[in-house]
């Protein structure tokens, strides 16, 4: 009963469309010539105008106060912006960032691979590492590494529980800078291992199954097939971590490593000009993170090539496109 009636309506509809509809539209377009031009009225955006006015006003107030409030003490900012101790502090900050990220990425990759290992002892060890280093504040870890000598003043090499061959002075073995580096790097490794693991897990199972079917061994599959594809997921958060690390390095000022923050602290410690000197540090941190953000944009774009069909234009390319369009239009007018 139901099947019969539905077939009937279906037939009816078919007849309707093929019969009249198609011929009518054809005759219409030929009879009246070109259709009237659409007089489209753009959608009004009163909200945008209100927002622009409010934000513009606030911005003007901010800029005005930057120039008129004498408490900013821009003279002192200018005077200290390129002092030799500040420049040296910037180098230390950059060194710490680069080296601790290097430790973080290398150790993080190893930990991620260990974590995915079928060997329960190895994966358990990696899990414990991440649990510990992600579970304690990085500030505590930095203090711990720098004052390690209070715990083990003379670590040594030798047979476990047996004779010692060589004895070291912990403070010479781990100079202050290395202590800071260990604190930052080992902590970062815990976070990086989770990022790398996420990247590896994002690669389709079928990829490694196919590779195994071709007779590749586990590590070869990882190296040739999985990791290259995982990079797309790993790289963007790594750039993010690097930018975050640049600012996290300021924590080492607590153990008297003279980084950018500590350098300005040393200056305001004796001249009491807190605000302008903290501005000096902020300006430099902003410059450095801006440069890193640009670098991250291009690296992300590079690794997106595998998945996106057409890459969006870079800001530079967009600017060039606008420029050439304008030149073309002015050329036509002339």
């Amino acid at each position, binding site marked *: 009963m139901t099947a019969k009636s539905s077939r009937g309506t279906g037939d009816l509809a078919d007849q309707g469309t093929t019969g009249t509809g198609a011929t009518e539209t054809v005759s219409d377009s030929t009879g009246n010539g070109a259709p009237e031009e659409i007089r489209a009225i753009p959608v009004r955006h009163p909200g945008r105008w209100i927002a622009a006015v409010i934000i513009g006003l606030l911005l003007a107030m901010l800029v005005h106060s930057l120039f008129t409030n004498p408490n900013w003490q821009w003279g002192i900012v200018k005077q200290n912006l390129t002092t030799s101790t500040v420049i040296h502090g910037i180098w230390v900050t950059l060194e710490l960032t680069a080296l601790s990220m290097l430790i973080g990425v290398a150790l993080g990759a190893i930990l991620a691979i260990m974590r995915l290992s079928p060997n329960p002892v190895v994966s358990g060890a990696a899990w414990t590492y991440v649990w510990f280093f992600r579970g304690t504040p990085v500030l505590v870890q930095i203090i711990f590494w720098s004052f390690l000598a*209070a715990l083990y003043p003379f*670590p*040594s090499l030798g047979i476990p529980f047996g004779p*010692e061959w060589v004895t070291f002075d912990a*403070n010479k073995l781990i100079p202050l800078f290395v202590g800071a580096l260990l604190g930052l790097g080992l902590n970062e490794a815990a976070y990086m291992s989770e990022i790398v693991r996420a990247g590896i897990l994002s690669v389709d199972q079928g990829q490694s199954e196919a590779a195994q079917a071709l007779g590749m061994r586990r590590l070869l599959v990882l190296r040739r097939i999985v990791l290259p594809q995982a990079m797309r997921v790993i790289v963007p958060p790594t750039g993010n971590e690097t930018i975050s690390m640049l600012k996290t390095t300021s924590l080492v000022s*607590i153990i008297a490593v003279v980084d950018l923050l500590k350098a300005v*602290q040393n200056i305001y410690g*004796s001249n*009491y000009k807190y605000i302008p000197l903290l501005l000096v540090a902020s300006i430099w941190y902003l410059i450095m993170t801006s440069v890193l953000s640009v670098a991250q944009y291009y690296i992300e774009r590079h690794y997106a090539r595998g998945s996106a069909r057409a890459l969006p234009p870079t800001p530079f390319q967009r600017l060039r496109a606008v420029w050439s369009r304008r030149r073309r239009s002015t050329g036509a007018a002339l």
Partner: protein
Amino acid sequence: MNMRLRAGCAAVAAVVVAAAVLAGCGTTANKNQASTKPSCTAGTGTPQNAPATPAKVTVAKDATIASQIPASMQGGTLSIAADASYPPNEFFPPGKTTMVGMDVDLGNAIANTVGMKAKFVNASFDGILAGLAAHKYNLSMSSFTDTKARQQTVDFVTYFKAGTSIMAKKCNPENLKTATDLCGKKVGAENGTTQLDSLQTKSAGSVAQECASAGKAAPVASGYPDQTNVNTALAAGRIDAYLADTPVVDYAVVANPNLFQKVGQTTDVAPYGIAIPKDSGTLKNAVLAAVKKLMADGTYTAILKNWGVQAGGITNPVINGAQS
């Protein structure tokens, strides 16, 4: 089979290497120091019971002095900033959450005299002057040395005097005796202190200046955010010595005789001042009057004796009494 054997060998080798590296991590013997100085052994010495309870004094309100407090503050809370890492002047005793110390007792006594209630706020030392300028606190009692440089930012009411002492590791392995012995050595101090400034800046009488005059290398100064960190740095051997106010050095030796040793003479004796924001009206006059009253009625001496710092007592408090 062959493959499994190879993996097994690698695992054993890895374990052996790892264990060899870590071996002896449990050893804490101080071989070097024991051989050079047989008369002194680091790690020995019994910690004494350093004073840690407030002085038992009762202070009544003085209506005349209380009337000098600016009208907007009268009868309210007097918020006092202090960096509680500086025993016996301001600190938290182990396991306690209430700040105690010579400054705390005096602060409470001053507040009671002017009919207010003292509230001590723990703050990092190098941020206190900025905090006062921003009126985060009404005043600060935190072992501040009254200096000309600091007077540009705040006013001081002097109430105590103290010098600077050198603290070395137990047994003085670097054989430090005077300020010039610190030249080229790693020396610590708390951020924002006159001691750190003296190590870093060449100005009349500073350690950096004395080293330069003697043709020696400048001390390698390390500034730490609080005195607790300075103590830890010395105990861990990150620094060879530190400079701090004499009462603080004395207290640390009493509490940790197995770790620390005071060396050399006390230098740079200067007044401590209660730091008060410049635009606080008659607050500084009220505080000065209160300090004078506490000195006259014996409360001041009782508090100083309670903390074992009566040597630093003064008799003539003034507003802005810096010598340098």
